[in-house]
């Protein structure tokens, strides 16, 4: 009897066990964190959430909830330090890079005007790593929108449009999700930022066919001139918090 395959099997079994128990531990930590959050005990919640994310770094839900807890506790530097360590421990995890990028974005509204630029640039680097590691709707959509936040003078809107087109391709190749409407809004806004109003309107119109009740699309299609400009620019105001809560991904998905 060849003992090698048997020993390999044991190793795999052992590793699966370790992984499973880590995931189970993460789940248990996550549940403890949820309880602490309910009691507004952020220090405890963050500790448990860090443990949960550390045990299951690819889990988008844990990481997203961790960042939302950080926003409530306003301890943004703690989050950045945590994800910095996490990416060095898991350099090939697209989700970890994605959440690291979001952690930078989360700090932007409380930062000075120049620090905002540095944070936005760092976020973009992490989003790029996420795209390079795993092409996905969320990765392209996130980086595409990130490009659109940059003022016109930096000439990054075209990159944003390219990414959002990729996100559109991906979403069109699978089942429709409610959050897919964001791509229509973002891509239209991207064309508008590139002074292609006609293309912007056609994207918004296409989106409205798919999502006929969406108020953001309706507003864009009924407004003109300064009013439309104000509506679009309100979505790219660095002093306002960008919604980086990813719950839509699991709330509206079978995956």
């Amino acid at each position, binding site marked *: 009897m060849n003992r090698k395959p048997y020993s390999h099997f044991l190793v795999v079994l052992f590793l699966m066990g370790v992984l499973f128990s880590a995931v189970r531990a993460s789940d248990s930590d996550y549940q403890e964190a949820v309880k602490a959050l309910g009691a507004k005990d952020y220090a405890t919640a963050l500790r448990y959430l860090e443990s949960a994310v550390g045990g299951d770094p690819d889990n988008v839900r844990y990481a997203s909830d961790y960042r939302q807890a950080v926003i409530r506790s306003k301890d943004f530097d703690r989050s950045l330090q945590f994800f910095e360590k996490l990416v060095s421990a898991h350099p090939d995890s697209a989700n970890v890079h994605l959440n690291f990028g979001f952690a930078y974005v989360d700090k932007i509204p409380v930062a000075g005007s120049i620090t905002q630029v540095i944070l936005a*640039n760092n976020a973009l680097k992490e989003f790029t790593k996420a795209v390079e590691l795993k092409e996905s709707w969320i990765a392209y959509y996130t980086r595409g929108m990130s490009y659109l936040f940059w003022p016109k003078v930096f000439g990054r809107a075209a990159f944003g449009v390219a990414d959002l087109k990729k996100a559109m391709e991906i979403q069109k190749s699978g089942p429709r999700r409610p959050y897919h409407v964001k791509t229509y809004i973002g891509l239209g806004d991207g064309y508008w930022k590139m002074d292609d109003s006609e293309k912007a309107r056609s994207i918004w119109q296409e989106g409205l066919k798919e999502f006929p009740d969406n108020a953001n699309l309706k507003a864009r299609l009924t407004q003109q001139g300064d009013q439309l400009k104000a509506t679009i620019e309100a979505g790219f105001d*660095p002093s306002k918090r960008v919604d980086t809560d990813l719950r839509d991904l699991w709330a509206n998905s079978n995956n």
Partner: protein
Amino acid sequence: MGKFQQLKAVTCCLALCLSNMAFAGGPAGIRFEEISAKAGVRVQHHSRTFHGKNAEVLHMFTSGGAAVAVGDYDNDGFEDIFATDSDAGKPNHLFHNNGNMTFTDVAVKAGVAGGNDPLSVVSDALWFDYDNDGKLDLLVARFGTPLLYHNEGNGKFKDVSATSGLNKFGNTIAVIAFDYDNDGYLDLLFGNYFKPVNLLDLKDPRVLPNDLDNATNGGGVTLWRNTGKGSFEEVTDKAGLGKVTGWALDVGHGDFNNDGLQDIYIACDYGTDHVFINKGDGTFREATEKATGWDTKKGMNVDVADYDNDGWLDIYVTNITDEYMKECNMLWHNNGDGTFTDVSKETGTCETGWGWAAKFADLDNDGWQDLFVVNGLRSAGPESYVPLILPVITTPGLDITNVNNWPDIGNRTWSGYQKKKLYRNLSNGTFKDVSAEAGVDNDLDGRGIGVGDFDNDGRLDLVQTNADQPLLLYHNITEIRGNWIELKLSGTKSNRDAIGARVRVEAGGITQIREVDGGNGYAGQSTRRLHFGLGSATKIERLQIRWPSGATEIVTVPINHVTYIEEGRGVVTK
């Protein structure tokens, strides 16, 4: 009602409506005519030319020295203008007011043209009577040591810098005079931009801000006490101001808490501003945290006025708001309890581009102070410098203090061609942008503002200085305006310039306060006369003066006149 009475009623109604239209910024709103050329004051400013590898960057970082100081140096009843230049060998200008809205440059004859020597850059100027002899002396601030000129009273000035005690090198960009210790002599507060190294003889290129939102390596401020013997001594640390290490761009004073003492606001570039409350014992208490909170903005200007006529002095600070940076200005509304609330968004005074000087002044004499703001850093070619800065800011580990790490600007524009903003006070806590209608929406690279009534017609005129561009003189030609008074105060027990004196005027159903200030506002000293618009009021119910000495006086003054008042003697002849 008879026909005549009907006609009279209609006429009265029409007159009232027209009057209201005028005061509501209607068709007969604020108007200015730019007359610098015909007035003989259209002179070009030149920023300092640097040499070597980092020349362009240093030129850009030191382009703030186009300043103006308004004051009647020869006591002839007409306000004169001192305007700075900054390049090596370029003369400053002393424009003597000829009394007919023309001026003659007498700087060389008066002996005040110099200052731009090979190792010093003229950056600001200030009229103040340091020896209480009744004649305005002149301080010329520099990236270097300041120059103090004593007014000899015969149209000439004597350089007394060597004996003034003002011998400390500083990269001064702003200076104000006020009597912080109420000893009857005017003291000096300098705002210093760079740390004290000579940029014209640079040994170490690491001179730029160490953080663009929270820099701590600037020049801070220096406070100089007037000894009363013709000299000054530095008291910065003793007074409690030594811990300010930011890049001070402007300093302003006023009695923020209505206790009769002059407090300080320091606007810093690349980081937090500071509020200091005068404790009355020769020291100040830092009150920033409670008063305004700490900020990360690019503070450029401090002007102080009670814009809403609630009896408390408010503060206006310009910052940078452009396509690529959305800081918003700060209009600090004084809550009267030691705290201020920024109401720039609510009042409509938030976005003025790359802000520089801003001045409150009642330009249509309606009893509510309007606001003029100048802006713009560098107007040049079609390409923008901004994308070139991005790698400097975002490259990890790059030493941004090193001037050699900043790219040359070449012919690129940086926040240039910005329209100036004139906001009319609508008397309801908001302002309306009337720049274009008023004729002041030029797009030069503004720096300083000097406000003064140069033709004594009761309408305040404006001087605008511009970096590397000509000076502008806006003559106020507003047609329908309210009544007014202008008061020139003279202290006896208090400092002779009466800086810090507060006047409270009750007329037409509103109460206004003004304080004589010693140079508030970036790169611009305005008239020392207190100007009050009275709207349609034809009499003043009460006019009270609170002198810096603490004495108070009630005086009666005629409307639509310039009135001279001496401490303890009331109204006097000029």
